[in-house]
């Protein structure tokens, strides 16, 4: 690699926006959680004084647990619809990224998961009509999916393209066939088992810390460490030791965190979530109505201001306002309040 050129992976948004250190991740989740809790506490207070003292809010770990449960539901849905693996991987990434920017207490993962999957089908060019989608999922309306779509897209920062570990693994499986004395049956076997480890890695935070190529190589190494080592040394003669060292934490992560969460624990979390949900987001509650009213009020105020300014300008004779008279133009600050 010539020193002046940067890896093409560095051009991707996955590298630029969605790459953290483990400490960073924990810190982000913790601060997100505290900020959310304080906001919701205020909402509870505004609704009914002293009500928030009895409510036990969730902490960051419990949120992750709930998200993980819904992560495991995505492969089930994908097998129902026969979506290809790319859709499944993209949807899981979207769900994880969404909850790096939002809290479970504001948006319940059930509908976010459906929306993330729907969005993933669109961005990976395997679209299906929303009516077909919701008709095969019980107790779901198209509006449940569509209402959150823009929110999800916005939380992702509109970074829809994701680099996946399973594709890197496929590449390794192809490249490994160049090695002498390895049979194609062996390659297929190793590929299959490593793919299971990649599926497990999707339940973890691996993709936020490591690159997909590293995750793929780690999965390969978990199946057949000598094969991975031979291939790594062949590809990177000089950095091979460094690379193989990076694989160790990934392997630990996959083996410890790569399983579905305990159903009982999640059920507890869900029960508590019902009580500590942000009332402002629950359609129909008092806080929600109040928020709507506030927004409406602000909008109408702005409209009145604009109308008054326009009327004044018209009366003074110049519809665009005259700079000499001192009005530098109506402040046009659109919708970002």
């Amino acid at each position, binding site marked *: *690699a*010539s020193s*002046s*050129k*940067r*890896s*093409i*992976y*560095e*051009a991707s948004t996955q*590298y630029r926006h969605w*790459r*953290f*250190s483990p*400490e*960073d991740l924990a*810190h*982000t989740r913790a*601060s*997100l959680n*505290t*900020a*959310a809790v304080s*906001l919701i506490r205020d909402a509870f207070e505004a609704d009914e004084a002293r009500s928030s003292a009895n409510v036990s809010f969730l902490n960051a770990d419990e949120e992750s647990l709930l998200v993980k449960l819904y992560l495991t539901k995505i492969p089930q849905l994908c097998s129902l619809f026969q979506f290809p693996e790319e859709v499944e991987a993209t949807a899981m990434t979207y769900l994880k990224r969404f909850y790096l*920017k*939002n*809290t479970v207490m504001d948006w319940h993962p059930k509908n976010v998961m459906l929306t993330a999957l729907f969005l993933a089908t669109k961005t990976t060019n395997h679209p299906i009509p929303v009516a077909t989608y919701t008709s095969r999922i019980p107790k779901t309306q198209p509006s449940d999916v569509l*209402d959150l779509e823009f*929110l999800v897209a*916005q*939380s992702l920062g509109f970074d829809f393209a994701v*680099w*996946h570990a399973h*594709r*890197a*693994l*496929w*590449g*390794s*499986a*192809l*490249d490994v*066939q*160049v090695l002498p004395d390895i049979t*194609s049956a062996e*390659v*297929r076997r190793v590929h299959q088992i490593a793919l299971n480890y990649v599926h497990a890695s999707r339940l973890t935070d691996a993709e936020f*810390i*490591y*690159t*997909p*190529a*590293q995750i*793929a190589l780690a999965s390969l190494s978990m199946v057949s460490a000598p094969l991975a080592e031979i291939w790594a040394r062949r*590809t*990177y003669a000089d*950095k091979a030791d*460094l690379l193989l060292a*990076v694989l160790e934490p990934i392997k630990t992560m996959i083996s410890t965190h790569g399983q579905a969460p305990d159903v009982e624990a999640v059920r507890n979390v869900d029960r508590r979530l019902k009580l500590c949900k942000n009332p402002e987001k629950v359609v129909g509650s008092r806080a929600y109505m109040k928020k709507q009213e506030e927004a409406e009020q602000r909008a109408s105020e702005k409209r009145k201001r604009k109308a008054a300014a326009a009327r004044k300008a018209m009366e003074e004779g110049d519809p665009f306002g005259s700079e000499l008279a001192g009005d530098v133009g109506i402040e046009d600050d659109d919708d*970002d309040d």
Partner: protein
Amino acid sequence: MSRPVPGSWLRGTVIRKGGISTGSSTRTSTPQIQSTSNTVFGGGVKDASGRVSEYSSMDDTCPVCKSDRYLNPKLRLLVSACYHKMCESCIDRLFTLGPAPCPICAKILRKLAFTPQTFEDLGVEKEVAVRRRMAKEFNKRREDFPDLHSYNDYLEEVEDIAFNLINDIDIPETEARITAYRQENAALTELNVQREEQYQKYLKEKEDAERQEREQRALDLRQIEEEEREEREKERREIIDKLETSDKDAAKLIARSRAEALRRTNARHSSSAVAHARLQRSRTAQTIVFADVPHVPLQDDWYAYEDKFVIRDDYDDPASEAVRRDRDGIMRAGGYRVEEAWERALRSAVAGLEIMPLQGLSSQDTTVSGGQDVLMTS
């Protein structure tokens, strides 16, 4: 061009509209224009495809003698070089003895200078004539210019000259410009004329070839239909004969003959499909191959790991087996090549492998959007 029946107007058998008998409807077919004089230009309009007929209207009136179709059903107005209309009898009367001034604008005209009218609007007629003349001389194409700007300048020049000629502005100066251009660009103009001719010829040949092919295919199809019909007839007759003569089970006989017929049609279909596919392939091979512009590779600073993997022609790859087996087929979208998919996979297997993970808390405060709601469009 028949002469009018002598004295028919006395007998009152002259037909009002055109020279056609009242049997044929004069609404649908264009009225035949017949010349009343055999000294004036009698030809039709200038059109290679033969689909444009001369313009004439029911209320044509000669501006010079004010006669119209009422008294003179074969009235035909021709257009002078100065774009004034006149009926043939006036032209005869005024110009038979040599060049004379035009009664409307006093420009000196000869009798030959009169042509039949194609367009209702004489302005259009004049414009078309001017442009036809200019197209012969100004025939440069985009490829003859180094850049778009100069091509546009040339086009503007052409339009300018055309406008001047059409609207009679600065005629002598414009003519001077034309001669100057002609002298400068004689060679290129000639070359372009030849190119144009060649292209027309090529198009015509292609068209003829296609037409022949179509006819041939239609013929083949008809033949095949004939054969099939004959075969069916024969089969039916055979069945009847067999049923009459043999004493085997009727149902079995019928089943056997049906199976044979099916085999025959399948054989024929496959052979015709093979022939058809071969024909299509040969046709695509014959289309002209234009030399490719030399490929300029992307020039940017990104390292795409080309040296870290070597792509082979063939891999043992269960994921793409179905696509690869179906080489000509319906599974592939246009432009899809398995090699490109493999290349992407191979690249992603090594891309970013050497990027070490981040460690520790990052220096700036990771901004958290726990505050203001993201606004939704509802």
